[in-house]
């Protein structure tokens, strides 16, 4: 027997799917801006492991000489990104969804189990819950990163008018580096997120579009079972 169980509320799904293209375009227009002063690299002394970014990267995506357009798009879409993020956070707070998302004292242990499980070291199935510890940590972190992008962005957008913020973040150049590092963070998040979504399968992915999951239920025993109050929780 099966049940269709509600997973993601409609509002969360809209916030999620609106954020995806908007954040992608923020990163894209951000690259057009960054190109004009592409100073960051990974390395030490004269050794460079990775330059952000090699010339071939800009050329492959035609990202060069687009500073003005990049700024125009960035300072228009920033409103959508900020308002959507704010609406999402407000919704999770008001609806109580935050209880599932914010890490608690069990999250770290649960996240460790998830990592062991995903690496194939731990064979037992993971306990069923809406978000495991790894997800709680990752999803809360990425929301905080969004807030960080907003603040570091404002600090480099208005370093005179919001001088207190720029100073708080270590000055103009640090704020710019922080803004850039957060962007790299999104890209890394995206890679892991997509890999995990692929791994988790269709039922999980469909829940972010249609809102429900199909859950297996053992065939009813002869004795009548009391109706489960919360079918997502393990018995």
């Amino acid at each position, binding site marked *: *027997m099966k049940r269709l169980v509600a997973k993601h509320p409609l509002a969360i799904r809209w916030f999620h799917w609106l954020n995806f293209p908007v954040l992608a375009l923020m990163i894209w227009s951000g690259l057009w801006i960054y190109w004009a002063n592409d100073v960051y690299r990974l390395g030490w002394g004269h050794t460079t492991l990775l330059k952000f970014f090699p010339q071939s990267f800009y050329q492959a995506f035609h990202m060069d000489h687009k500073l*003005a357009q990049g700024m125009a798009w960035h300072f*228009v879409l920033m409103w959508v990104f900020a308002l959507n993020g704010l609406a999402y956070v407000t919704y999770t707070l008001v609806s109580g969804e935050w209880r599932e998302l914010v890490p608690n004292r069990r999250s770290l242990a649960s996240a460790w189990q998830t990592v062991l499980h995903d690496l194939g070291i731990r064979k037992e199935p993971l306990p069923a819950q809406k978000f495991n510890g790894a997800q709680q940590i990752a999803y809360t972190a990425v929301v905080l990163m969004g807030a960080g992008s907003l603040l570091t962005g404002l600090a480099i957008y208005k370093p*005179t008018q919001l001088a207190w913020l720029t100073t708080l973040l270590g000055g*103009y150049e640090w704020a710019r580096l922080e803004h850039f590092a957060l962007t790299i963070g999104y890209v890394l998040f995206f890679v892991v997120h997509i890999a995990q979504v692929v791994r988790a399968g269709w039922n999980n992915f469909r829940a972010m579009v249609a809102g429900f999951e199909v859950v297996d239920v053992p065939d009813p025993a002869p004795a009548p079972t009391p109706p489960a109050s919360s079918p997502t929780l393990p018995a």
Partner: protein
Amino acid sequence: MTDQPQPGRLLTDAEAQQEAARRSRRSFITLGLAGLAGLGGWGWLVTRPAEQGVPQPLRRVLEANGQLAGEYLSNAQLAPVFPKSRARMPRVNGHVGLKDDLDLTAWRLRVQGYAPGGAARNQEFTLADIQALPRVEMTTELRCIEGWSTVVTWAGARLSDLLARYPLATDPRPAPGTGQPADQARYASLATPDGKYYVGLDLASALHPQTLLCYEMNGQPLTPDHGAPLRLVTPLKYGIKQLKRIGTLAFTDQRPPDYWAERGYDWHSSL
């Protein structure tokens, strides 16, 4: 929400499959339509006629952002200042308007006073006239729109001090209702002597106490590359607004043309 399942309802595999398919179809179609609407909106946006190098709707938002920042800006708000020891020589970026040879002895700052409807009021200043105004020194961060920044020690005269001594941004006719302050220009327009580089400033930015007619950089007279004999310096704006080698300064009610705003950048370029 209509999506809410009945939590207690058990379904056979076939029922579950049918119900899941029905709801998935509806949701995926909705998401697909939303995606298409988004693409349509994108297509519409990028095909709008360009206004100074940027699609019109984007230009409108940039203007609204500029207005919003202008509302927030106050002349009491100062850009951070730094210890003089942090000052460095900034990079030289761009030579538009600086390519002709300049005879420094013949150079004059030509000011076109604000004259709404009245006769033109022109006045010329030598560098000595500007240097006779109170000398102001400040160490602020020069920020290029490209993304780099350098702390520099500037010295010069406040534009507001020039205008306090020579009220060239104010309507010379007596204000009609007595006791009313005289009408002020809304904008300042600056250009190089050859007219090839030009910027516009709102008057509030022009009157800000950190907006200087600058003649010294890091303790030395300005070099030709950095805008000798006189350049604009203001930490309220990106470097693209801080015109080197000022030739003319005019006060108007029409928003002045701006070299980089015509090439797709924000007219305000405020920091």
